[in-house]
């Protein structure tokens, strides 16, 4: 049996849990359907609500895009651990001889994949609706870095919020202040990808990268204590 000290192999555990969650989501479309609709609605509503002139679109539109991504992401995060608790499947995971970090990593990867799907559907609609010209390479890089940071924090906070009674309120209240740096950096870097001249891209991309590394590492290390509480 390929295990050290009775513990199940780490990456096998992560693979198994990601497979389980994606298969379950594919069949239920519980999170993805709502997330896509929410992100698209945000883009459409703001498109009517805000008058974007040609010269200001690339400065303002990224903020609208990330509002849509952030709220769609929060829908996904909110369901992830809450559903596990309601069904008792989280107890099943806690009983198993698996590293708690693997549970975090698997859930964060699943959330990131779901958020990426929402973003891949939303981005072409965004470019068309807001009439902006996108440097797709930079835009996708920025979106990927922003998604990793936002998802890593969101998954951790969702686990904390799932332990509370007012979890629907606690998630945004805890998550949005924590992810202010990643959201600001994502908006600024997205503006550069859309052709804004007034912003310097490198510092924002560096900030995103640093946030991602710190948040993933910290969340991975503290997750065991959050689950135990």
């Amino acid at each position: 049996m390929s295990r050290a000290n009775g513990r199940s192999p780490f990456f096998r555990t992560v693979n198994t849990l990601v497979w389980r969650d994606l298969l379950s989501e594919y069949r239920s479309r519980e999170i993805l359907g709502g997330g896509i609709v929410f992100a698209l609605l945000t883009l459409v509503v703001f498109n009517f609500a805000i008058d974007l002139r040609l010269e200001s679109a690339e400065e303002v539109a990224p903020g609208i895009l990330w509002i849509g991504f952030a709220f769609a992401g929060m829908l996904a995060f909110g369901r992830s651990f809450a559903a596990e608790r309601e069904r008792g499947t989280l107890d099943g995971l806690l009983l198993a001889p698996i590293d708690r970090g693997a549970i975090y990593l698997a859930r964060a990867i699943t959330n990131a994949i779901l958020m990426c799907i929402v973003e891949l559907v939303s981005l072409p609609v965004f470019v068309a609706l807001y009439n902006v010209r996108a440097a797709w390479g930079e835009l996708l890089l920025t979106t990927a870095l922003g998604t990793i940071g936002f998802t890593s924090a969101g998954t951790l906070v969702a686990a904390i919020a799932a332990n509370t009674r007012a979890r629907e309120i606690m998630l945004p209240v805890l998550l949005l202040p924590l992810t202010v740096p990643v959201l600001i950096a994502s908006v600024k870097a997205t503006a550069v990808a859309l052709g804004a001249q007034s912003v310097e891209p490198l510092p924002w991309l560096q900030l995103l990268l640093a946030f991602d590394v710190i948040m993933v590492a910290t969340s991975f290390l503290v997750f065991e204590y959050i689950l135990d509480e």
Partner: protein
Amino acid sequence: MRGELVVEVRGLSIALGDQPVLRGVDLAVERGTRLALVGPNGAGKSTLLRALAGLIRPGAGEVLVAGCTLKSDPWHVRRSIGFVGHQAMLHPDLTARENLAVFARLYGLDRFEERVEQGLRQFGLVGRADSRASTFSRGMLQRLALARALLHDPALLLLDEAETGLDLRAHEWLLAAFGERGGPRTVVLASHDLAFVREGADDVVFLRSGRVVDRVRTADLGPDALRERYADALATPPAARPGRAVGLAD
């Protein structure tokens, strides 16, 4: 003479919020013993089982499973335990086979497909192996939960009213899963069904208000005597039985 202890609980106290649920529980269970926890609602049976499973951290006291605490060797403790609680712990959108395969992989079992098929056969689920768990009745979910709990062949089986919803055949499968009396598998179960307790358990521990108030051997009691002892233990305040042995029966 005491045999090898699979469960040792010393001075276990647990409060949920500001409500004490377990108050200084001591308990010892030998290998191969089937022990039933009996008591009224709110007596602390489920909390004690969850504490044994490592799902609730003790406020005070210590829980040892197979000689280890969750702190000293969490992997050994978790690998030793199979737990069926009030919830099936199964994914509703996965099939029975997929659910078992997930757990087999999480436990790092070799030849996990074989173990999954064996689990399905053991609880008569082969015909519904590819149906989603969300389509299962309460009894079938319970059977699948039992198959899940036994997948890794645990030394200690913890059952919280696991017999609820099972039909007669499934009831027999459950008793068969206990293994031979005195064998390698130890069972601690909580139940309100005294007939099931009498059939399945060697020892009965009566809990009341978070305290162990009595421990008897089922073989020493007839069905009526067990019922009377149950009523008696529940009616008597715990303080009236301070000298009662609550560890192993003599």
